[in-house]
């Protein structure tokens, strides 16, 4: 696939400096028709076509754009790989029927790329090598599945279509071997001896006799559902409807394997090539479409449909065993899963870290005595037998204690002390190579209206408010 998105309707070329010379690195159709081609020195090109418009090439930008395009192609097949500087290779085995067959799929692909103003040459073949050759040197489109029939089309292509080094191409041409057909049936021994094993391997790949694996861009989730829409959608109602369909399909897949989803990703493929992904997590394995739908409700607001979304995929990124007959579980467990669903919704809106429970760590330093755990984590530790502790622990705030010791000022209000109890001496703990706190003397203090405070006197003799009861 080649992208020729030029800012002009006239002849246009991208230029790149190689070995001190500016050369054309890519040209548009108009420029080709005027006799220009990639690799030409810029000076020659300008001399031939003075009205040629040029722009500096941006190989890194192009590569990034190609990566994005490859991501977008995941709407057709999960197995997509960027191939070189200008290609994308995709394994469509077993997915063409989803798009109405190979020809229909080809039409849809061409239409989509046209909408994105990406000029492409697309070929369908039995091997990546054959597709590479047929898209770049052949007519493009679908090659017959039958190897012999496919070879009939491939045999007239130049040897360069084998994707071999220029040196070997030149050497073959020097011997009068110009087409694939002319070397494909030659004795393998002499051919290998003269041109190396690589040439034979390329021929075998072309003929689909040797596998050429495709590395998927994204680790493929084993549970996925997909919706390809006849008409792009942009309204929330329409997206909701699609999501319902996807969730039903995915939950059926999960049910077949007695699994529940722990992490889901919804990906929206826009007509302009933009891709947006939303991820949600669950605290219990779930395959209830209704529950999972609710998790998506708020995050869906972040989807920008633009000119429309033409395809969605929904994947369960992780799934865990799920007890098949939920209905027969005990009532408490049903309440558990109802509570878990509630927690998921709260976490979805408030943020996962903002919904939590406490776990005692058995430490004495008050501010380090508890950890925050995910709400569904099981508690393993017992609460230590502490002296009285406040219900609200604040960051220590300085307090002005009067010298008589019968009143103090905190947050600008003078509070008369009615009673005190203490001290409770708390030493620091070794942490990260140092003491987290120096020794503190804690007091419970009740003021004249009955408010109770947790104050401490630091080892330096200063007073601090640490909590209220």
């Amino acid at each position: 696939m080649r992208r020729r998105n030029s800012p002009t309707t006239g002849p246009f070329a991208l230029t790149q400096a190689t070995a001190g010379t500016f050369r054309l690195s890519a040209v548009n159709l108009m420029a080709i028709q005027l006799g220009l081609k990639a690799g030409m020195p810029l000076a020659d090109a300008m001399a031939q076509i003075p009205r040629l418009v040029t722009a500096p090439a941006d190989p890194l930008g192009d590569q990034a754009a190609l990566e994005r395009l490859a991501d977008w192609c995941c709407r057709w097949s999960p197995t997509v790989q960027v191939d070189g500087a200008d290609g994308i290779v995709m394994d469509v085995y077993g997915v063409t029927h989803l798009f109405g067959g190979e020809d229909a799929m080809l039409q849809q692909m061409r239409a989509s790329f046209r909408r994105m103003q990406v000029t492409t040459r697309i070929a369908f073949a039995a091997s990546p090598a054959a597709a590479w050759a047929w898209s770049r040197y052949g007519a493009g489109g679908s090659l017959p599945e039958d190897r012999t029939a496919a070879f009939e089309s491939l045999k007239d292509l130049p040897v360069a279509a084998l994707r071999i080094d220029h040196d070997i191409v030149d050497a073959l041409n020097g011997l009068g071997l110009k087409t694939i057909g002319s070397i494909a049936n030659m004795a393998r021994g002499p051919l290998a001896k003269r041109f190396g094993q690589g040439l034979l391997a390329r021929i075998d790949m072309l003929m689909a006799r040797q596998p050429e694996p495709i590395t998927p861009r994204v680790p493929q989730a084993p549970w996925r559902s997909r919706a390809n829409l006849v008409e792009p959608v942009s309204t929330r109602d329409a997206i909701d409807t699609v999501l319902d369909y996807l969730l039903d399909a995915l939950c059926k897949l999960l049910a077949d394997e007695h699994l529940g989803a722990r992490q889901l990703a919804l990906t929206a493929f826009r007509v302009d090539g933009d891709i947006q992904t939303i991820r949600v997590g669950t605290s219990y394995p779930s395959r209830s479409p209704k529950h999972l739908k609710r998790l998506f409700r708020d995050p869906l607001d972040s989807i920008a449909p633009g000119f429309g979304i033409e395809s969605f995929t929904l994947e369960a990124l992780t799934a865990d065993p799920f007890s098949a007959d939920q209905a027969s579980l005990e009532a408490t467990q049903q309440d558990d899963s109802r509570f878990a669903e509630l927690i998921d919704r709260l976490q979805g809106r408030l943020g996962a870290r903002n919904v939590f429970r406490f776990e005692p760590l058995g430490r004495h330093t008050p501010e380090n005595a508890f950890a925050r755990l995910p709400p569904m984590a099981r508690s393993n530790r017992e609460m230590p037998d502490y002296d009285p502790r406040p219900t609200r622990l604040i960051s220590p705030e300085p307090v002005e204690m009067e010298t008589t010791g019968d009143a103090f000022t905190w947050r600008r209000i003078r509070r008369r002390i009615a009673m005190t109890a203490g001290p409770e001496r708390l030493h620091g703990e070794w942490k990260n190579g140092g003491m987290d706190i120096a020794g503190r003397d804690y007091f419970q203090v009740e003021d004249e209206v009955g408010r109770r405070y947790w104050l401490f006197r630091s080892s330096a003799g200063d007073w601090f408010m640490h909590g209220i009861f």
Partner: protein
Amino acid sequence: MNQLSPLTDLRSKMERITGISRRAAVAGVPIGVAEIDALLPGRSLARGGFHELLGDQGAITSFLAALLGHQKTIQHVLWITPSADLYPGGFAQLGLSHRRMTIAWTRQTDNRLWAAEEALKDMPGGAVVAEVEQADLTETRRLQLAAETCGSIGFLVRRDRQPSAALTRWRIEPARSLDIRPCWRLTLERVRGAEAGGTWVLEFDNASLSFNLVAEVADRSLEAAE
């Protein structure tokens, strides 16, 4: 199948008008002090609705911890708060174990009200505490409806006194104790569908993890002096 007897029908109409549900009356949350419970419909803080608390923040926190702590019928408490200072060490000493508590933290009041509504819909055996600055009548009606759907119980800690759909409204202030123990002055300001009110001083009983009705400390010292 679903035919209601005229009596049941009338009852449900009455419940809708008065806001007092019979089901709630069965499984309410008693304060555990007979004098106070006697004033409440169903002799308890009704389920299927929410109750409002105003007053001193520290006193409200410890009162709720003690109230929910000794109610073994309440399986779980969701505490929705804008501050990061809830301390489980203190809650456990009032009877509310860290195992029975989940915290939801968010600064935005509307998110806290939303969370309370969601939780009231899905915590039939639990209690929901929400600390908000204020709530209008519509928002409190939503909370009430949510609680009715599953018979849950909510506690709305608020600062304003706008009209509300709450079943009861309380004012909670600290009170002097004799030995630095939790002590509260409770004022029942409003009971929906009833004329009731009163002020009491409650003291926390460390041994039984429950409330004792006591006289004001000032009066108690007087008695001691006589």
